[in-house]
C-alpha cells in the first residue's frame, strides 16, 4: 500500500493529459538522472563501502518511498521495494539502510528469506537533517542493488523530546491482512511501544538519558526464522515494521520477538492466512 504523501520516483505524473505533458516527461527524466547520479552516495559511507567490499551495486535498482519534505524528522515513513525477480536467485536476502547525515549513519539491517516473497518493507526512521537516505541490498546470487532518495527535513528528528513516560513500553502489536487475493502477498504489520532512546537526549538538568533501544526483531514460523532485523537508534520511537509474507508457502502462525539492548524481550503471535 502506498502512503498517500510519499512519492515514487517511477510514478507517472498525476492529472489529465495536457500540452505540458511532454515537458513534465522531460522533468521526470532530469529528475531520474539526478537521482541516478546521487546514488553513488554509498561511496561516501564507510560502513557501506566495507559491506560492498569492492562490489559494484546496480544504482537505482531499489525503489525508496519517502516524503520529499518532512516537517517531523523524528518519524519519517520509509518503504523499500525490490525489482521484479526472475527466480529465487534474484530475490533479496539482505537489506541495509543508511542515513549518512545522522550522527551515526546506520539505520537498520534486515535478513530476508523466500517466505517473504521478495515483497516490500516499510518502517519509520529518524532523520537529523536534510539528507539522502541510502539503501543497499544483496540478492541470493550475490548481486548488489542500491537506491537513494533525498529528503528535506524542516524539524530535526534527534532532538525531539521523547516522553519520559514509558509506562506502555514493550507492548507489542501485530496484524496480518486477512483478505488474500490470488497471487498476492499478505501484509504483516508490527509495532512495539518503545522510546528508542538515542543516548543523545539531555534532561532539563543537563544529564544525558542513556541509550536504550529495541535492538532486534525476529519473525519465526515453525521454529524457523523467516525475517530478522537489527535496529539502530535511527529507527523511530515505537518501532514499526511492515513486511510481506507469501501465503502459498508461509501461511500459519508467526512468532514475533523484539529484544532490547538490555536483553529484555517481548513477543506476540500473528496468524497469516494460507492460500493455495
Amino acid at each position: 500500500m502506498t502512503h498517500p504523501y510519499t512519492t515514487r520516483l517511477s510514478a507517472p505524473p498525476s492529472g489529465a493529459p495536457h500540452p505540458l505533458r511532454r515537458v513534465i516527461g522531460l522533468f521526470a527524466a532530469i529528475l531520474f538522472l539526478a537521482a541516478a547520479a546521487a546514488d553513488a552516495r554509498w561511496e561516501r559511507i564507510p560502513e557501506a563501502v566495507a559491506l560492498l567490499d569492492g562490489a559494484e551495486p546496480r544504482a537505482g535498482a531499489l525503489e525508496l518511498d519517502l516524503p520529499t519534505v518532512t516537517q517531523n524528522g523524528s518519524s519519517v515513513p520509509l518503504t523499500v521495494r525490490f525489482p521484479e525477480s526472475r527466480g529465487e536467485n534474484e530475490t533479496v536476502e539482505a537489506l541495509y539502510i543508511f542515513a549518512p547525515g545522522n550522527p551515526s549513519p546506520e539505520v537498520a539491517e534486515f535478513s530476508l528469506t523466500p517466505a517473504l516473497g521478495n515483497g516490500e518493507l516499510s518502517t519509520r526512521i529518524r532523520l537529523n537533517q536534510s539528507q539522502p537516505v541510502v539503501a543497499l541490498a544483496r540478492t541470493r546470487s550475490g548481486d548488489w542493488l542500491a537506491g537513494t532518495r533525498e529528503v528535506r527535513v524542516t524539524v530535526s528528528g534527534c532532538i525531539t523530546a521523547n516522553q519520559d513516560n514509558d509506562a506502555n513500553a514493550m507492548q507489542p502489536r501485530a496484524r496480518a491482512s486477512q483478505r488474500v487475493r490470488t497471487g498476492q502477498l499478505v501484509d504483516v504489520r508490527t509495532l512495539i511501544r518503545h522510546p528508542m532512546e538515542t543516548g543523545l537526549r539531555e534532561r532539563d538538568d543537563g544529564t544525558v538519558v542513556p541509550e536504550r533501544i529495541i535492538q532486534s526483531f525476529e519473525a519465526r514460523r515453525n521454529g524457523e526464522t523467516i525475517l530478522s532485523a537489527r535496529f539502530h537508534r535511527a529507527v523511530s520511537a515505537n518501532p514499526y515494521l511492515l513486511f510481506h509474507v507469501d501465503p502459498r508457502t508461509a501461511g500459519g502462525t508467526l512468532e514475533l520477538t523484539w529484544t532490547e539492548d538490555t536483553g529484555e524481550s517481548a513477543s506476540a503471535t500473528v496468524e497469516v492466512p494460507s492460500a493455495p
Partner: protein
Amino acid sequence: MKHGAFNRRNALKLMGTGGLGLLFGGAAVRGSASSRSGRVVVVGGGFGGATAAKYLKRISPGLDVTLVEPAKRYYTCPFTNLYLGGLREFESLGHGYDELRDRYGVRVVHAMAKDIDVSGKKVVLEDGSELPWDRLVLSPGIDFRWGALEGYDEAASQKAPHAWKAGPQTHLLRRQLEAMEDGGTFILVAPENPYRCPPGPYERVSMIAHYMKTHKPRSKVLLLDAKDVFSKQGLFQQGWRDNYGDRIEWVGRSDDGRVMRVDADKLEVETEFGTIHKADVLNVVPPQKAGIIAERAGVTDETGWVPVDPATFRARRAEDIYVIGDATEAAPMPKSGFVANSQAKAVARAIAAELAGLDPIAEPGWANTCYSVIAPDYGITVANVYEVHDGELREVPGSGGVSPMEATPAFRSREAAYAEAWYAAIAQDTWGTRPA
C-alpha cells in the same frame, strides 16, 4: 485548444463593460510598455486569491486584474469550528467581493475555471470563454483524494462529513451533532501531514467538546490520529484537561490511531491493527492535494502539491504562473489562511515589479500566526516568520514561538479575544469586508 490572439469581444462579454477603461486604457504601471503586458488573472477568491487581486491593484492601480471565483459569497474555514461550538453565527463567516470590485477596481468573474491553456496563456471558463493573461496566479486551495482512505469517497462524505471546506458540509456536521443523542460518541479521523490547517482537527474537537459540555454532557469525543505528534500538542492537551476533563480522548498512530478503512453506512472505522470504532457522528478529514485546476495547469508534482520557487512562488513547472496558499509545497510554512494572505502580498509585489520592469524583491519574508480557540475564554497561538535561506524556505531562527505552558486564565482569555480580533483584521485585509 485555441492559441489565437486575444479576442476582445469575448473578453468584453465576459467581464462586463464596467472595467473597459482599465482594460484598454493606457499603461498605468511605471515603465511598462503597453497595457497588454499588464494582464493578471487570479483563480480562486479565498485567502490567497482575494488578497493577491487586491494588493496587485493597490500596488499598481493600472494593472488589469481579473479574479475568477464561482462563489458570490465566500465562507471562511477559519472559525467554522467556533460555529460548530456555538460561538459564532455561520453568516458572520461570509465575505463578498463588492469592495474588491468597487473600491480597488478588480474585475470579478463569478465562474469556475475549467482549464488553463499554458502556452496560449489563457484561463478557460466552464462556458468555454477565455481570459488571457500575462501573469497567472492560482490560489485554488485544496481538493480531496477521494478513495485514498479506503471507503471514503464523495458519497461517503454525505454520511460522514469532512467539513474541511466551509459550506454545506459544515451545516451537515452541525445538524448531525444536534441530532445526536446525549451520551453519543463523536469520532474525528485526522490525516497524516501535510494537510490544510495543522491545528484544525484539534481546535475542532475542542469546540465539539464545548458544544457537548453545554448541550450533551454525557457525550464523548474520540480523536483517531495518523500522527504521533501534532501542532501545539502540549497546549491542546493541557487545555482539554482544563476545560473538558477526560471528555476528549486522543489516540496517536503508535497507539493504533491510524484509520485504514471507513464504513460510512455503519459509521464505523477500522484502524491499522484492526480495532473497530463505532461513532454516532463521524467526521473524517481525508487526505488532500492541491485544487484540481493546478493539476490542469500541469504545475503539480507526484505528491499532488505544487512545487514553487521559494523566493517568488513561481511554479517550478511553468513560466509566468504563480501559485500560493494551500495548494503549494511551502513547508515549513503551514497551510493556513494567514500564510496564504502573506504569500499573496509577496507575490503581488513580485508580479507588479516584474511587469513594471523593476528588480525582484531582494529579501522576501512571510509570517504566520495560528490562533486556536479551545473554549470561549481559552485561546492559544503559534507564530513564526519565514525567509529564504540557501535557496530554501525556513523559519527565521528565534522568530517564533507558542503560548507558554504556564499561563494565567486571564492570559488564555486574552488570547481568545485576540483570535476574534485577528479574524476581523484578516477578513478586512483580504476582502475588505467589515466583520458582521
